[in-house]
């Protein structure tokens, strides 16, 4: 089809110089200028934001239990969450992601119902990390103080060779190597069998301890030991501390275990925590099988103590690992932070971690835990010793801006939680002095 030359020229001119195109080009230019201006402003704001995020980021403590199959790891996890899902008198509580909450509730129903069997045991396909938020209430709402990672895995990974093509064992060993705390799970049934002279029970107990020794001997992180199924040992003696002392003596008669405790004693208090995930009136042993009582009362005991032991211990171990000069530097930083407004104090951490003391701290715990927020937690804990926390708290609140007030609330909340965790351990030790493995 032929087109007349004049018409083509007219259309071309209209398209290039149309007012709509000019308007669009102008809008695009204005948007670009606005964006560039905003970007230059936000660069500084972002740096400030990053610093604040760096300082207030919630640390994650990864706890790995070391226990053979059937030792009670899953029940301990279930009952621990059950007990800590509300604040009670502690002032803190655990919150789980919804998908994991459903799983924990399902396990709880299986365990607590007299009509149902015990849970069927964890397979490699169910191996995963549960991540809890350790929460507390503040004047401004609920705050996450810590995140707790808890690895759920089948205990046979500690003793059986992995099948070709499986990566589960390698993942477990990697988790153990990167753990912030290790909790050795000692099966109370094996302890009972050993006390009763059962040769096989004794051999399995020895295997349990060997698996722990292998993983814990070179570990620098806090360790603790838990005796599960404590209710099955009620028959050993009426007095609980006497019972625990008997078990303690028996465990310390294993040379490897004794050496493990001795080596770690230079750096930390090693605790032996008797735990029942179901209570003393829920199950009984008959014909080698543990049965649920039809009218048994489900009342877990001491299931929260393992976490209460290792979390504050992480902070203590960090400090103990420092040389004197670094510790003095740390103390000075804590004092300086207490003089600062809280919001500024949090921001000051970003620069502190970059200097000598910060680097020393980071290397002292093998990195990972102490990145920024772990350091904030440590400095907060140290601040208590520098200055009376109550007096400091009130004097600060009088002059704080709203932002500072919120930051102050957060810091104080963290201190309260740490103190609450420590109190729990001290209360147990007051009742059961034998829970301390080293003097």
């Amino acid at each position: 089809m032929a087109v007349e030359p004049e018409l083509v020229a007219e259309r071309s001119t209209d398209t290039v110089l149309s007012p709509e195109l000019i308007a669009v080009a102008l809008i695009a230019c204005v948007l670009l200028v606005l964006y560039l201006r905003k970007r230059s402003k936000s660069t500084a704001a972002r740096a400030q934001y990053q610093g604040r995020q760096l300082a207030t980021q919630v640390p994650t403590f990864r706890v790995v239990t070391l226990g053979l199959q059937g030792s009670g790891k899953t029940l301990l996890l279930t009952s621990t969450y059950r007990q800590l899902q509300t604040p009670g008198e502690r002032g803190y509580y655990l919150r789980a992601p919804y998908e994991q909450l459903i799983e924990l509730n399902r396990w709880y129903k299986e365990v607590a119902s007299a009509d149902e069997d015990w849970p069927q045991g964890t397979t490699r396909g169910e191996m995963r990390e549960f991540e809890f938020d350790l929460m507390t209430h503040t004047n401004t709402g609920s705050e996450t103080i810590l995140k707790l990672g808890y690895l759920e895995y089948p205990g046979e990974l500690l003793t059986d060779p992995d099948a070709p093509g499986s990566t589960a064992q390698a993942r477990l060993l990697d988790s153990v190597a990167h753990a912030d705390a290790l909790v050795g799970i000692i099966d109370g049934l094996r302890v009972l069998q050993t006390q009763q002279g059962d040769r096989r029970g004794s051999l399995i107990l020895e295997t349990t301890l060997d698996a722990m020794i292998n993983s814990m001997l070179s570990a620098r992180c806090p360790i603790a030991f838990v005796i599960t199924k404590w209710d099955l040992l009620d028959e050993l003696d009426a007095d609980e501390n006497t019972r625990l002392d008997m078990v303690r003596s028996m465990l310390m008669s294993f040379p490897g275990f004794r050496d493990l405790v001795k080596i770690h004693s230079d750096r930390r208090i090693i605790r032996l925590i008797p735990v029942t995930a179901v209570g003393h009136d829920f199950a009984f042993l008959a014909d080698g099988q543990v049965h649920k009582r039809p009218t048994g009362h489900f009342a877990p005991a001491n299931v929260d103590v393992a976490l209460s032991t290792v979390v504050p211990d992480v902070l203590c171990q960090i400090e103990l690992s420092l040389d004197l000069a670094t510790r003095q530097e740390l103390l000075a930083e804590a004092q300086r932070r207490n003089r600062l407004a809280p919001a500024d104090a949090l921001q000051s951490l970003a620069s502190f971690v970059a200097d000598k003391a910060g680097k020393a701290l980071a290397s002292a715990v093998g990195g990972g835990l102490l990145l920024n927020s772990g350091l904030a937690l440590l400095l907060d804990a140290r601040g208590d010793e520098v200055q009376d926390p109550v007096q400091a708290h009130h004097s600060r609140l009088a002059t704080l801006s709203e932002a500072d007030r919120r930051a102050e609330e957060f810091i104080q909340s963290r201190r309260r939680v740490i103190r609450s965790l420590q109190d729990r351990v001290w209360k147990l030790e007051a009742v059961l002095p034998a829970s301390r493995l080293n003097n």
Partner: protein
Amino acid sequence: MTVGAAVQVWPFLIARGRRRGYSVLLAPDILVSQGDYGFLEEVAAPARPGEPPRIATLNRAGHEVCVVWADHTVTAADLDDDAPNQPVRDEHSRPLRLIFGFVAMDATVTAPAEEDLFDARAVAIPTYNRFLASEDSFSIEASRSFSARSEFGRRVPAATPLATVTPLSRPGASRPTVPVVVRHGRVAPLVAAGVGAVVAVAAITVYSLGGSPSPSCPTLTPTPVVSSSPSGTHYWQPSPSPKSPC
């Protein structure tokens, strides 16, 4: 979709004994000979009560492997008569569980047939009894294939990983300190301005040149899909009607 009369599948079994922990007791002979069957344990997480059989597809050494499984709580009827007094529990008083099923190579199961699972279990039970008879000295048994009656979907190129087992979050892995949204915010205005300008110019140009309306959208036919859960496990379900892209 094809009915797998000619497709071969292999039974497998994962179970725990009275004393020994979970392990693969029965695996396809081709995987046993290649020394690559441990992944079955990581893929075949037990189903929750009332759940249908599970399906997972993954890529192993360039081959698409489709795993279909169910689980079964062992009863006295499953066990040989030579151990009538033994409790149907492990030494920790827990019920014994079988995770059994079949494996298809380079083919995707879209609807597992009950008969195939039944046949797989029929092979697995004798293996389990042999295992219980000598847990400590038992070594893995190799299964032979049988012709499947399940429904299979179209083949996917073997090099394309369909699903992988969700890895554990690596301990010590750092989290981003700056939300991703900040980075998105950096380019979003530019992209919006640019796209807006281009669209406007194109519209004006088309209008000026007297362009015709855009062609109508083609009709899309719904096809069944295998949906992926976070654990890499798939449940068959019909796909919702696709939305018109126009």
